[in-house]
């Protein structure tokens, strides 16, 4: 006879459910709700930034067009790039981590759940700041990489660049916070039994990305802080007349900017691995090679930044090093592609669903982008096509092919888990083919335009250049992409309204997120699932973990290497303080665009908000005391059998 019971779902729901209504919406710290928020917000920014691109394409559709003038065009491409990178690509990849990592490691919530809520709010406020600024005609104007001296006090008067620089501070702070949460969740909250070698590939990809965020994002925050202080309080960091240097900006920016590409791309690789494994009905071929490739890519990504600066006149020896590094980084990517091909080739019956189609589209487009990347690693070729449409074509092949296609695949794949509804497969195929054709029509001609000498960031071109037909083709392609995105949005809306219920595991997935209902309950899993293999759900009967206190929110902390139960750790309750703190931080950040004194007076409300955040409530204190087991009183976990 055993006294052990499986966990009481009603008791769990009572402590894990958010308060009802609008206040509950503001106070939630549930990683699933916050991830959903991130998805919606990032997709809205994606659509807005896409609309900016459409306007640019319309302007370029014919020679000597006068639809938009040069000043507005500068703002269009600057905001398009900045929003796509800082407000769409990085946040949505991290949102995937916020949603999936806790579920895939089989825990109840993300580590530091209140910080998670805070990160969303400052991301949102940073994004609103720059789009509101654009509407008020003070949008960014110096490109997404804001080179000095163009972005410096001399050539970018007014507040445009200051607002851009503070948007960076907002979004990078959010992104750094999420990176820490994801690392700690993957390191310390894994379900018992999930040894390092049983961690799902997507989780590995998020861990590698998070470490890259931790080492890369500080560079752009520092660089943009130097920039804003040059502009506001006359520091001389980038002013050559007073011992400063414009190239210092480029070094700091690209020390972040190159890893940034991989920060967007590596989570996508994790998605590809999961999708391929599921639809080939076998575990991914070459698990160790795949994990090591991710880590190696993350490592090498920090040794490439100078290849963005080949035309700045750096010493040739240095350039050779960066050429070599840029060539080498294609090797781990190649390894992964061969592993995926092997998985597909040796799997069971392959199911050609929409997620897998997006993955195959990724192969095709990304490989082209990778090839032009290897070409651009050569200094002589890069010097020829630098700042031309060839580069624009290359990085759209890499970023859209490498990140957005897998992302859409991932969206179709995990949408049932996120919402409990399935997306229409038929609309999904339309979505895919329109996107695939539209994408290639838009960006392939840009290779040729670039080789013919068309430079980036020109708002128009003369009829005598003969570039009209290819530009018109690109514009037609971009319209097709727009249609494809509309198909996607309609598919999402209709499926939410009347899609087929997904059930817990619609694709026969074998990782833990498919082991709970769709959408998952507030507490994630009633009983944590014991992980006995790399495909934990394939083991029958499943073994569970039980005995976590249900009086308050708790999770099980496990050891880093072998995921043995270590201690029970309380989880934060819903709280309004993350939002209040985010508002206080927003006042400080926006205030500092106008006066440096905002750093002083603005920090007072931030401090008060943080104290409010950390001050324990009475109920919390009572619960903590009631559940407390001191280290010396703790009892080791016991293995028991229950049942009839």
């Amino acid at each position, binding site marked *: 006879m055993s006294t052990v019971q499986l966990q009481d779902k009603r008791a769990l729901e009572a402590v894990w459910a958010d308060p009802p209504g609008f206040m509950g919406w503001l106070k939630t710290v549930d990683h699933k709700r916050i991830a959903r928020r991130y998805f919606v917000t990032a997709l809205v920014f994606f659509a807005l930034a896409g609309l900016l691109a459409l306007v640019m394409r319309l302007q370029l559709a014919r020679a000597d067009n006068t639809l938009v003038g040069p000043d507005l065009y500068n703002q269009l491409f600057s905001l398009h790039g900045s929003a796509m990178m800082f407000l769409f690509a990085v946040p949505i990849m991290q949102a995937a981590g916020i949603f999936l990592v806790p579920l895939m490691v089989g825990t109840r919530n993300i580590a530091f759940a209140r910080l998670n809520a805070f990160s969303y709010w400052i991301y949102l406020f940073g994004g609103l700041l720059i789009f509101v600024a654009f509407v008020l005609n003070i949008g960014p104007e110096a490109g997404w990489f804001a080179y000095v001296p163009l972005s410096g006090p001399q050539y970018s008067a007014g507040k445009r660049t200051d607002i851009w620089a503070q948007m960076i501070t907002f979004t990078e702070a959010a992104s750094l916070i999420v990176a*820490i949460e994801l690392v700690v969740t993957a390191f*310390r909250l894994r379900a018992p039994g999930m040894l390092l070698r049983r961690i799902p590939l997507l989780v590995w990809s998020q861990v590698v990305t998070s470490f890259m965020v931790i080492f890369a994002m500080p560079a752009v925050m520092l660089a943009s802080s130097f920039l804003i202080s040059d502009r506001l309080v006359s520091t001389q*960091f980038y002013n050559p007349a007073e*011992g400063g240097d414009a190239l210092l900006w480029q070094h700091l920016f690209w020390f972040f900017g190159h890893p940034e590409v991989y920060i967007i791309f590596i989570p996508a690789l994790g998605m590809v691995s999961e999708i391929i494994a599921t639809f080939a009905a076998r575990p991914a071929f070459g698990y160790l090679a795949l994990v090591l490739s991710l880590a190696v890519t993350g490592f090498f990504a920090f040794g490439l930044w100078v290849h963005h600066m080949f035309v700045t006149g750096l010493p040739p020896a240095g350039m050779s090093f960066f050429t070599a590094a840029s060539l080498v980084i294609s090797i781990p990517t190649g390894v992964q592609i061969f592993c995926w091909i092997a998985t597909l080739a040796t799997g069971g019956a392959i199911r050609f669903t929409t997620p897998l189609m997006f993955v195959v589209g990724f192969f095709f487009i990304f490989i082209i982008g990778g090839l032009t990347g290897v070409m651009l690693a050569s200094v002589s070729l890069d010097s020829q096509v630098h700042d031309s449409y060839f580069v624009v074509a290359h990085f759209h092949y890499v970023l859209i092919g490498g990140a957005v296609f897998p992302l859409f695949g991932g969206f179709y794949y995990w949408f049932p888990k996120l919402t409990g509804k399935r997306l229409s497969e038929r609309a999904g195929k339309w979505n895919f083919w329109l996107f695939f054709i539209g994408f290639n029509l838009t960006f392939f001609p840009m290779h040729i335009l670039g080789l013919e000498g068309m430079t980036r960031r020109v708002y128009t071109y003369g009829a005598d250049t003969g570039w009209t037909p290819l530009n018109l083709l690109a514009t037609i392609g971009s319209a097709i992409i727009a249609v494809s995105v509309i198909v996607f949005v309609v598919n999402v809306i209709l499926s939410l309204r009347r899609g087929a219920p997904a059930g817990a595991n619609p694709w026969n997935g074998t990782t833990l997120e498919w082991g709970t209902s769709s959408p998952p309950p507030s507490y994630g899993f009633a009983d944590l699932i014991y992980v006995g293999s790399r495909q934990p759900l394939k083991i029958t009967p499943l073994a569970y973990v039980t005995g976590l206190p249900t009086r308050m929110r708790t999770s099980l902390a496990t050891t880093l290497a072998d995921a043995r139960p270590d201690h029970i750790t309380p989880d934060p309750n819903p709280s309004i303080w993350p939002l209040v703190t985010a508002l206080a931080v927003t006042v400080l950040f926006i205030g500092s665009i106008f006066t440096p004194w905002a750093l002083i007076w603005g920090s007072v409300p931030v401090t008060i908000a943080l104290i409010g955040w950390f001050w324990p409530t009475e109920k919390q204190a009572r619960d903590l005391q009631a559940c407390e087991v001191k280290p010396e009183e703790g009892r080791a976990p016991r293995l028991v*059998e229950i049942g009839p």
Partner: protein
Amino acid sequence: MNDRIRVLDVSGLQTYAYGHRSLMWWGTLGMILIESTVFALAIGSYFYLRGLSVTWPPHGAPPVLTYGTINTGVLLLSAIPNQWTKHQAERENLRGTRIGLVICLVFGAIFLAIRGFEFGALQTSWNTSAYGSIVWALLLLHTIHLVTDFIDSAVLTVLMFTGPISGRRFVDVSENTLYWWFVVLSWLFIYATIYLAPRMPP
């Protein structure tokens, strides 16, 4: 067919743990990684700018050593009460922890006061040259850490006096001392950069 299920019962497990077993320790470590990267890049920028200049400092004298050196001494000395507080917290000795935290706060206050004089002794302004800008940036960056850690420790000290006291509170104290170690050790690099580098031949 066996219908019985195997269950791992964790109900008696301890609810907090010290050091690297605590989640917050890992969170603090993540913060430290981020901040270290910021410091490293700022110091890298300093030497990058120095490499562009024939003389260093470009004009004027290097920062006066007095206050910076006194402060380095104070900071290194503060490691002793800091480590003692950590020890008291991990033994869950409330009285010792309270005393330790107050001593640490006093050290922090002295340090901040002397820091005020340090800014005055830099012998350069942030807007005269890139040298002035980066020196001010380095000192300001470190001061922000001092101030935040001071406020954070003050709140924790108040909580240790007002209660409610739970085991996790002692874990917080223990981790607070980890962060202080970072503030101390990072200062040594920044001190060497601001005060010693301009005195070295290029």
